[in-house]
């Protein structure tokens, strides 16, 4: 076993955005072990100032290309909170359907394109094409269906168009919903196939456990993505309006993105957090997938996040098929949205695929934004990744430099980090 380790991953690959890993071990003693985020900061909180209430989602959707739908929703919910807007039951359902499409798209992309290469010992999905052509094609197909689903409701795949404060600018036709439903029914077997493929290599997921506080939305009776209160696996809850006192953002010297903590030194968000806080309400197919991998509620292994993502992928498809029926039975109505801007501050939260996502804005009486704040799930996970590293390095040092580096990279990837989202806000404590 080597006593000296020098890991310097400059810009970890197959993640959204830029993150670095630095580990220095001398004579078996850890001198440095850091998760660093050098992503170019983007200053969205500063940029939204002066913009109008109905341009906010257009701007902040651009925080992240992968979870642009979640950013738009979180922003719109905050804007609606500030302007005191209610949306109809139909608009709420259609939005939720759209939100599900993003979960499917993102989870398939993450597990299929970014994580699978690790499990198969490849550097990217490209060499997997000749190795497992059917599996890759199935993944591509599921990804395509998810994207078409987003496009149908949002107007395009990335950076949704139709979601506007107060409702939706346009809804699909009944026929389009029917066609979507048929497509969703048709990919259920494909999802099962993907799960089986992952299961066949699941033993490559490192065995690493660390007691963690998991934070997500939760709402009785539903596996919460869009509604609900902020909930911690430690048993705490808070309304969305108080999210700033959950995230407690602070500037960290290792990172251009801010870090967060709630009750402990760090907490985690994401699919596993949602699963741990909502597992009672997962759909039958979601449960089948969880059982397939032996995923028990309450587990604390970051690598199991990937398994929770698969269970959620199955869940959203199954639930959506049913929701389309509910929508169509009621009959689709063309709803016109009329909004009068007013002064106020509002808060919003939804579950992005990679975890809970917070936005908040304040407007003057002309509807111009005077203040904005956002806190993205990856920021909330940074401290937790660091804590994982600190436990992982001594535990996995025996694997040698390359093995350890590979495992640490996989750990970062398992969080599905979306570093490019990284946004920040003032009045924070420096540690």
């Amino acid at each position, binding site marked *: 076993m080597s006593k000296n380790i020098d890991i310097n991953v400059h*810009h970890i*690959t*197959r993640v*959204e*955005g*830029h993150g670095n890993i630095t580990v220095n071990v001398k004579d078996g003693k850890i001198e440095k072990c850091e998760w660093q985020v*050098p992503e*170019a*900061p*983007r*200053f969205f*909180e*500063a*940029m939204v*100032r*002066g*913009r*109008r209430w109905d341009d906010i989602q*257009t*701007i902040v959707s*651009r*925080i*992240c*290309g*992968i979870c*642009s739908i979640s950013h738009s929703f979180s922003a719109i919910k905050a804007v609606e909170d500030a302007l005191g807007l209610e949306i109809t039951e139909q608009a709420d359902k259609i939005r939720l359907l759209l939100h599900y499409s993003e979960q499917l798209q993102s989870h398939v*992309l993450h597990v299929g*394109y*970014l994580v699978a*290469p690790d499990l198969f010992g490849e550097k*990217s*999905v*490209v060499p997997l*094409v000749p190795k497992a052509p059917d599996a890759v*094609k199935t993944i*591509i*197909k599921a*990804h*395509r269906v998810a*994207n078409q689903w987003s496009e149908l409701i949002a*107007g*395009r*795949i*990335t*950076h949704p*168009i*139709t979601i*506007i404060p107060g409702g939706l*600018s*346009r809804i699909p036709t009944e026929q389009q919903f029917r066609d979507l439903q048929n497509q969703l029914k048709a990919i259920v077997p494909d999802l099962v196939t993907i799960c089986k493929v992952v299961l066949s290599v699941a033993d490559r997921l490192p065995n690493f456990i660390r007691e963690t506080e998991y934070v997500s939305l939760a709402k009785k009776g539903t596996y919460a993505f869009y509604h609900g209160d902020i909930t911690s696996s430690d048993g705490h809850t808070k309304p969305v309006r108080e999210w700033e006192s959950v995230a407690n953002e602070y*500037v960290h*010297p290792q*990172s*251009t993105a801010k870090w967060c903590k709630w009750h402990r030194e760090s907490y985690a968000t994401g699919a596993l957090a949602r699963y741990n806080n909502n597992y009672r309400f997962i759909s039958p197919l979601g449960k089948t997938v969880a059982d397939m991998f032996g995923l028990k509620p309450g587990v604390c292994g970051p690598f199991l996040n990937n398994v929770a993502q698969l269970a959620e992928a199955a869940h959203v498809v199954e639930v959506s098929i049913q929701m389309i029926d509910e929508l169509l039975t009621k009959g689709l109505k063309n709803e016109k949205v009329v909004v009068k801007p007013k002064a106020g501050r509002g808060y919003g939260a939804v579950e992005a695929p990679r975890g809970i996502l917070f936005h908040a804005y304040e407007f003057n009486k002309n509807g111009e934004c005077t203040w904005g704040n956002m806190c993205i799930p990856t920021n909330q996970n940074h401290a937790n990744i660091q804590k994982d590293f600190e436990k992982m390095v001594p535990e996995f040092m025996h694997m040698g430099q390359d093995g350890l580096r590979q495992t640490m990279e996989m750990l970062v990837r398992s969080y599905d980090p979306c570093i*490019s*989202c990284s946004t*920040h*806000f*003032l009045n924070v404590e*420096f540690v």
Partner: protein
Amino acid sequence: MTKPRVAIFDFACCEGCQLQIVNLEEEILDLIGTVDVVEWREAMSEQSHDYDIAIIEGSITRLEDEKRIEIIRSRAKILIALGACATIGGVNKLKNNFSITDVKSCVYGKHADMPHLDTYYTKAIDEIVPVDFKVHGCPINGREFAAIVRALLLGKKPFVPDYPVCVECKALENVCRWEYNEPCLGPIIRAGCEAKCPSAGYRCFGCRGYVDHPNVDAAREVIDKYGLSLDDLRTRMVLFGSKQGPTL
């Protein structure tokens, strides 16, 4: 014939444009069949300094990134700017409406001066190095990207519309947003997006940048006819157009 070597790099952006390449879905296998992707951090672990075509996503917001893009330019035969951040600065340019000190202290408060949080005014790629081709949009239109890549591989000048969004919008039989008194930027913004926003019942907010000669003066007069104020238009033109050419 050896396949052209392609590398994809990202700067300050949401990475949504790279995602549109992934979203080519089945077609991406065709793409991989015709070019050698030698570096693409978001999708693969390999890295290389030897490439013919560099595809750049994102805008330049830091001095260190300026150095990096210069190095990339020196290595690439063809440099393609991918998406609004790279072609026109994108929403990142909203930052340029404020002073840098103000922007930094707004976000980082008293830590604004920490060296690793340094930033400066947002620049599009061609404000630093020459760009051979631009793929417009926020995000790019995957189909247009694919057509541009195919044209380049054939040694042909890619077709990029020099006419406004209205052309595509009308062809799709949308009712013009102006008929609902919405300040749509379609008449002055470059087409190629397939008029996605008006088709989804929303006004064009200009993510593809202006056409070569936008008739901005006309916009000034026309706005009156719809009972809107110049301010309504100005605030929209700023979204993707901050300090990048014609503003009212």
